[in-house]
């Protein structure tokens, strides 16, 4: 089918942010009746390229043609008029409105919610969506919200759909459902682009794959003519070994003992319900669950950042001493002699200060040392230099504000600082979220080396494939309760997925 006209042709597209070249003379064709996977590491320019198609950015150079006709897309409205709709990673929905109200929001003409709801049902029936037009957004799960976003674009007549990492927030079961819907839409003649860096999704879903690296277009090919290894090599630019090490746990002894932990948020909703487990030294305990199942509260409770309603969290030292951590803030925990490190999910909003440079961020943990009224700036900057060399952080200098660094380098700064004070407990939340393959493997290696040092590691993750390969045991959370604890080696992805959605996981599907 070489002679069909491309739905979208992007020619020679270049986009700069300051000195950063986000897209460098990219050529890309998108066809109807086809699912195109846009593959690339973080910072390779996938999202930027698609944002130019959906009118969020304007290209510095280059041309865009729809069905062979050159167009200029200045705003999302222009994009909608051309039938282009993008589903972003972060949903743009109004919580207190219903699905229908969100979908018609911003449309011109008379407001007729009944007709709109009927039309929405028709769309849902046609493609196999499950959504109640009258349900409020705040009542919806993440996957339902995503469905609303997709229906919103379809309702507005889009026939070119772009999905930016749609599966990042979904369970394996929800992902399967989404993929089925996307295939229906493809068969209906729509052009679909999915941005991702998960290889297995590319293989199961897409018809064609296009690969970007450092803002440049590397190549495209039919998915069936390639394989994960080849695509990875193209993405990274050199051959990569796709295996995560899992060394045997060293001398595991109880380190953190959590008993009957219950946590409520400010509104009084139960976030953790009677959670009990023991984390061992020299072991990686994975924590799986749909996002919002209590992972954040669990780590923050251990770190002394989350008020606890009841239960106990005890630290057990090498000499057998026990310290109760509940009711103590991070400073008090440190003063007990408990070396607890925490790599939080929100790196720039919690773990680091974006506007400060690397040296100043290293200082966050150590600035109190010494009796002087003034800060010691020499040691943190020395540490910063060491970290830049040791973790291969690419930065103009240690005086560069960390918000200017790419996601992977930001995470390296954070992880580097947290392991610098020789922890005995290491809490990590989504340690490789948004990181490219190279950085991810460096982080896995770093976490493994901490494990070999005898550190008790709690690893909250979202990619089940990684959890299954990396962790010695996996604790599955479901709605704030412990759904089960399974040994990492030999665990089945499907079983863990079930446990995430249903307590105990023994589903009858």
């Amino acid at each position, binding site marked *: 089918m070489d002679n069909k006209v491309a739905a979208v042709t992007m020619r020679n597209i270049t986009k700069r942010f*300051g000195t950063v070249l986000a897209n460098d003379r990219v050529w890309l064709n998108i066809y109807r009746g086809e699912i195109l996977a846009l593959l690339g590491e973080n910072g390779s320019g996938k999202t930027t390229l698609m944002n130019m198609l959906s009118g969020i950015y304007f290209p510095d150079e280059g041309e865009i043609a729809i069905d062979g006709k050159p167009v*200029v897309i*200045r705003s999302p409205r222009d994009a909608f008029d051309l039938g282009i709709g993008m589903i972003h990673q972060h949903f743009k929905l109004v919580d207190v409105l219903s699905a229908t109200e969100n979908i018609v929001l911003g449309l011109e003409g008379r407001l007729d919610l009944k007709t709109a709801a009927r039309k929405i049902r028709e769309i849902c029936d046609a493609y196999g969506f499950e959504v109640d037009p009258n349900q409020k957004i705040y009542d919806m799960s993440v996957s339902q919200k995503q469905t609303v976003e997709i229906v919103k674009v379809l309702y507005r007549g889009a026939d070119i759909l772009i999905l930016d990492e749609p599966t990042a927030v979904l369970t394996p079961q929800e992902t399967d459902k989404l993929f089925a819907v996307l295939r229906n839409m493809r068969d209906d003649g729509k052009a679909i682009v999915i941005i991702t860096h998960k290889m297995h999704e590319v293989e199961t879903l897409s018809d064609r794959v296009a690969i970007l690296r450092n803002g440049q277009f590397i190549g495209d090919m039919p998915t069936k003519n390639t394989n994960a290894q080849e695509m990875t090599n193209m993405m990274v630019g050199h051959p990569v070994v796709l295996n995560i090490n899992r060394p045997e746990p060293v001398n595991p002894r109880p380190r953190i003992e959590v008993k009957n932990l219950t946590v409520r948020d400010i509104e009084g909703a139960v976030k953790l319900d009677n959670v009990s487990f023991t984390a061992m030294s020299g072991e990686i305990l994975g924590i799986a669950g749909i996002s919002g199942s209590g992972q954040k509260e669990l780590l923050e409770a251990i770190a002394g950042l989350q008020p606890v309603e009841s239960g106990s969290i005890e630290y057990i030292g090498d000499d057998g001493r026990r310290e109760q951590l509940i009711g103590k803030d991070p*400073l*008090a925990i440190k003063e007990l002699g408990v070396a607890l490190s925490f790599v939080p999910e929100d790196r720039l909003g*919690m773990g680091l200060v974006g506007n400060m440079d690397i040296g100043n961020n290293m*200082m966050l943990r150590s600035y109190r040392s010494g009796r002087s009224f003034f*800060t010691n700036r020499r040691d943190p900057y020395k540490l910063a230099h060491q970290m830049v060399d040791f973790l291969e952080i690419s930065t103009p200098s240690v005086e560069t504000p960390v918000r200017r660094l790419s996601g992977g380098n930001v995470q390296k700064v954070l992880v580097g600082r947290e392991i610098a004070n020789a922890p005995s407990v290491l809490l990590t939340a989504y340690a490789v979220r948004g990181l490219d393959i190279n950085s991810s493997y460096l982080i896995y290696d770093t976490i493994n080396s901490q494990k070999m040092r005898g550190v008790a590691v709690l690893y909250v993750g979202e990619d089940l494939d990684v959890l299954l390969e990396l962790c010695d045991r996996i604790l599955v959370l479901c709605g704030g309760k412990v759904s089960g604890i399974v040994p990492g080696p030999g665990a089945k992805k499907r079983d863990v997925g079930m446990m995430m959605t249903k307590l105990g996981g023994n589903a009858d599907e």
Partner: protein
Amino acid sequence: MNKKTKTPLFHVAKRAALPWYKTWAIRGAALLLALVLCGAVTSLVTGENPFAVYGAIWKGSFGTTRKIWVLLQNIAMLLCVSLAVTPAFRMRCWNLGAEGQALIGALACAACMITLAGRLPNWAIILCMVVSSLLAGAVWAGIPAFFKARYNTNETLFTLMMNYVAAQLVAYFCVVWESPKGSGTIGIINQKTEIGWIPQFPSQKYLLNILVVAVLCVLIYIYLNYSKQGYEIAVVGESERTARYVGIKVERVILRTMLLSGAICGLAGLLLVGSTNHTLTASIVDGRGFTAVMVSWLAKFNPIGMIFTSFLLVFLGRGAGEIATKFGLNRSFGDILTGIILFCIIGSEFFINYEIKLTRGAGKEG
């Protein structure tokens, strides 16, 4: 869908960091543009020769030795209040109550001078003035800080409202302590005895204030940039969650910083009443609490930069007064010129952070 498409002529893009000389070149160009605009407006509206107007502005500040001293004194007082609000601003805590905090400091100072005269030796009275002024300012800032730390109230509104309370208190005590009776004003306190007048350098009425503020400026700079407390202020300002995450007690930092902020405002009140004016009126702070917000922002919260921004604002203000009297223009005309200049200077920041890119091949039709 065959509508005519127009390529936009330009679009705005974020710049990479510019080298320092380019940013100053842009700011210089903005100032130049401002002067040209001011000249044009002046000739068009009043028919005066713009160069004569510029000359008058210059003379307003540098015309006589006395004028230079007044200029320096005004800079010092404005800078003092600006230094006071800056620690709070660095913490992203918008203390708009500097006016009231300085006023309440002035009130405390005047109270010591009036009520303690003759009951304590002069040095003890001055000591009481210093302590009570700083304390009064600190309390005035501490009240909103306490509620912000404890109940997360909005400090902007709270501190703003405290200004009015302070102004009313001062107005009340102006009547209580009026002298002579029936005037409703205090007049010069202890004019004959000079009790409670802070000793000055011989024949240099303003030098003490200027030196105090200069030292303070350096101290605040060091405090904010090199002390542990200054570091905590920066972290809390950037992200409260990060601060909590590393174990900083955010409430304590907010309270401590606002107390400092208020105490320095109190110092400004002390210098105004005890050192130069020796009287108390409700307008003694003269809006500096609000001008200070602009001084601090324009200098991006850098105490050393604030020397220049406070100079700029005082210089423009005095120039405006001079042309009002010299050319018989309304004082508002001076304010118009000040507005034009500030507009250009603040507007130039846009061109430092962003660039305008012309679209190549503009005008082609799709």
